[in-house]
């Protein structure tokens, strides 16, 4: 019988993939990269959210260490994860959000950090130790953070309002602003707010608690002008709403766009709210892990951390950088009225696995 060329190629491919699979298995189980502080091992490729780092800051790092630095962008954690997980992405540094760090650790998609190569880790505020998704900080370093809370137009609402989720969920107060309230169009955030008001964890996996939260949102629905995420800040400053559920960074930058920023006030209710943290991490097969370690350490320097925040206007987890922040940003970060319940009242949204669908279903029902 004549050898069929296609069969030969197929057989070769099967053999190849077996070899490849065998080799891949040997690779896993390696410890942290063997790097020293300040060491670089090649050009750095960063995979980050868009508009999250000043290009000039990147250039400054490149010039100081004599490297080429490339920044590419993604628009969601979910798009980034499979690209890193598949391997050979070519990236040395990624910036996943809190819950995604947990998923990446579980999938062995990011490598253990060599903390000796990042001496500036000591600049991180103690508020960011013992994080649920990476308790010992072995895999990730906080990059920027923010909260979800409520923004109020004090010109209409006044200053005498409850610093509580009751401002939205208690009809006794909220009914006077019926039709001028917006909630986020996000199952975890909005049901999370209701859960917090009820005194539960926003990561609950208890169906009864979720049911209560759902009913609370249904009850509030009559007062709500919009369930909107992308424009909640704009709706507030254009006067469509006077009480808006939203993200700290978005609200704060939006206030500064108006003629009278002092007219608006953002706070996290005393029952607590969501805290999100984006983190720096190194993919398992990063071509130049030492350059990545050096970059992480460099961003954690006081001046660079301040420059990072002054450009993207999110809060910094870097304690040493606070002194270098712009005046209005520092005032916002330091204002104790913003988080009256203290950092301890904040919770990160965690991946609840199979229970996630319950949140989605409950939210769809609640929004109606």
């Amino acid at each position, binding site marked *: 019988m004549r050898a069929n060329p296609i069969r030969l190629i197929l057989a070769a491919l099967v053999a*190849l993939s077996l070899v490849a699979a065998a080799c891949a298995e040997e690779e896993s189980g390696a410890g942290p990269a063997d790097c020293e502080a300040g060491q670089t091992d090649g050009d750095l490729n960063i995979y980050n*959210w868009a*508009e999250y780092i000043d290009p000039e800051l990147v250039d400054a790092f490149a010039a100081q260490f004599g490297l080429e630095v490339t920044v*590419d962008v993604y628009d969601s954690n979910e*798009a980034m994860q*499979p690209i890193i997980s598949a*391997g050979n992405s070519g990236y040395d540094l990624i910036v996943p959000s809190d819950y995604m760090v947990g998923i990446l650790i579980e999938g062995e998609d990011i490598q253990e950090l060599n903390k000796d190569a990042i001496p500036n880790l000591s600049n991180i505020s103690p508020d960011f130790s013992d994080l649920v998704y990476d308790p010992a900080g072995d895999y990730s370093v906080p990059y920027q953070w923010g909260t979800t809370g409520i923004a109020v137009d004090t010109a209409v609402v006044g200053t005498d309002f409850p610093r509580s989720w009751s401002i939205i969920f208690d009809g006794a107060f909220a009914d006077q602003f019926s039709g001028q309230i917006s909630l986020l169009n996000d199952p975890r955030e909005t049901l999370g707010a209701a859960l917090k008001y009820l005194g539960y964890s926003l990561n609950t996996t208890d169906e009864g608690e979720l049911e209560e939260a759902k009913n609370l949102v249904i009850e509030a629905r009559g007062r709500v002008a919009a369930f909107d995420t992308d424009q909640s800040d704009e709706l507030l400053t254009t006067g469509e709403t006077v009480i808006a559920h939203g993200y700290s960074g978005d609200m704060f930058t939006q206030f500064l*766009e108006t003629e009278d920023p002092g007219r608006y006030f953002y706070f996290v209710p005393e029952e607590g709210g969501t805290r999100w943290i984006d983190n720096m991490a190194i993919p398992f097969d990063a071509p130049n892990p030492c350059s990545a370690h050096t970059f992480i350490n460099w961003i954690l320097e006081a001046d660079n951390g301040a420059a990072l925040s002054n450009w993207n206007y999110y809060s910094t987890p870097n304690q040493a950088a606070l002194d270098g922040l712009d005046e209005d940003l520092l005032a916002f970060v330091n204002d104790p009225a913003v988080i009256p319940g203290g950092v301890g009242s904040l919770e990160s949204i965690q991946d609840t696995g199979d229970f996630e669908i319950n949140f989605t279903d409950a939210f769809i029902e609640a929004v109606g």
Partner: protein
Amino acid sequence: MMGGFARPGRISKWALSGTAWVVYAFFYAPILLLVIFSFSDDRNVGRWGGFTLFWYDEFIGHTQLQNSLWVSIRVALLSTVISVVLGTLAALALERFRFRGRRVFDALLYLPIIIPDVTMAVMMLLFFSEGIRIAGLLLGLDLAKGFTTITISHIAFNISFVSIVVRARLSGMNEQLEEASLDLYADRWRSFRYVTLPQIAPGIAGGALLALTLSLDDVVVTQFASGPGSTTLPVFVFGMIRRGVTPLINAVSVIMLSASIALVIMSLVVQRLRTGESTSRPTRRRFRSSVQV
């Protein structure tokens, strides 16, 4: 059928032109708004804040945005040229020849059109990351994802679109013309070059424009096939939306819109110039010379 269509009656004429206007308004009103608001002096897209060129200035100063636009244009041009050649060849093969596996090949060609973007994207992701690993293991090659892999993935889906458009044109073409040219001693190449090609040229041009547009538009497949330093414009713009939509995105869109309109006008002008001179004359002359040889 003797020439011309029946003229519509007065009422149906009104109704028809009315519908046409509504359809045009539906198509172009959003574009008009997009253009207008690219000059708006307000961060919030959709709120007029007076005339400004600030967003265009912002674009000029935004190197990342410009780099990604440049990557997009290069990928689009290269993938269009290659997929037009391959797609046309595939169309010719399927339309003009009978061979074993033709029907299978025919069906397979439609696959990239039918399967969802995400599926195609994941396929490309696995193909490239595994391919790079195997190439590294066996051949010692140090490959990386980036410009080349994006271009390859765009070629992969564009071939199908090009070949479908070209085939539609080919099947409407009179095959006897080719036979006649062969009878007149033109070889296969010459009869393709001087008889077939001029006739399917509009199909090829249509396929090329389609490929160019699809390549410039694509986000999902591109994102999964890209590597360091190869963010395309749509991927970058999608990323920017997370920080809120500003008129900067309008300004970028207007620039791209102007570029594509310029492209279309250019191709129309070229077509005008072509039809101005008779195309049949030089063709006939070449044939004569080939016969003399």
